[in-house]
């Protein structure tokens, strides 16, 4: 098993639901080939640095996973067939240093995935605090 990272750009012309479906399909391809997904990171809709197939924007999604090296060619073949994807970039994390970096990235993504719940609470408190003076002024 080797550590990999796949960045996938999904077509922007699809609806939000279709994008989620195609992202799920990407993860399905990886797991179907014996991959273990460590974490995922949705970078969201971004402007592309240059147009790809006349698309100016794209939905970025990153998947961190570990899989046997022989399965990668099959995974990439399936990605090429998939017409929802504008582009995919597969990165191998091979050396000790890179594996360390991979683990750090995965931890970071897991933390950032769990933190938004914490961040929401203060944001609400701020919103309430902003509302309160308005009410006071209205009275």
């Amino acid at each position, binding site marked *: 098993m080797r550590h990999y990272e796949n*960045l996938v*750009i999904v077509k922007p012309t699809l609806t939000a639901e279709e994008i989620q479906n195609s992202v799920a399909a990407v993860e399905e391809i990886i797991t179907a080939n014996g991959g273990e997904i460590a974490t995922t990171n949705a*970078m969201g809709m*971004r*402007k*592309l*640095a*240059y147009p*790809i197939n006349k698309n100016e924007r*794209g939905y*970025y999604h*990153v998947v961190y996973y570990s899989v046997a090296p022989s399965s990668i060619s099959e995974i990439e073949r399936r990605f090429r067939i998939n017409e929802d994807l*504008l*582009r995919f*970039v597969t*990165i191998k994390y091979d050396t000790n*240093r*890179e594996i*360390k*970096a991979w683990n*750090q*990235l995965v931890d970071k993504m897991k933390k950032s995935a769990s933190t938004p719940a914490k961040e929401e609470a203060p944001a609400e408190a701020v919103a309430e605090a902003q509302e309160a003076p308005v009410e006071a002024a209205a009275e």
Partner: protein
Amino acid sequence: MSEKRKYKKRFCKYCESKVEFMDYKDAGALRFSLSERYKIMPRRLTGNCKKHQDMITIVIKRARAAALVPYTVTRKTVVSAPFENLR
């Protein structure tokens, strides 16, 4: 006198901050080693060491493939997208 040096010779910025791994998705961090036209800056201008220059070239080329950093900037694209993605 020879022409004045455009850039000051510096020590490797990445060695100083002990960078061991660069992430190609962090396009803002690649800005340092890219010129205004998104060319990879030579070592003699940035002062990067060989090790980190090798790392950054690989990372920049990955970022280009992922459409995070442009390959070329022509007169047309300069006007429409000045450094939009990177900040």
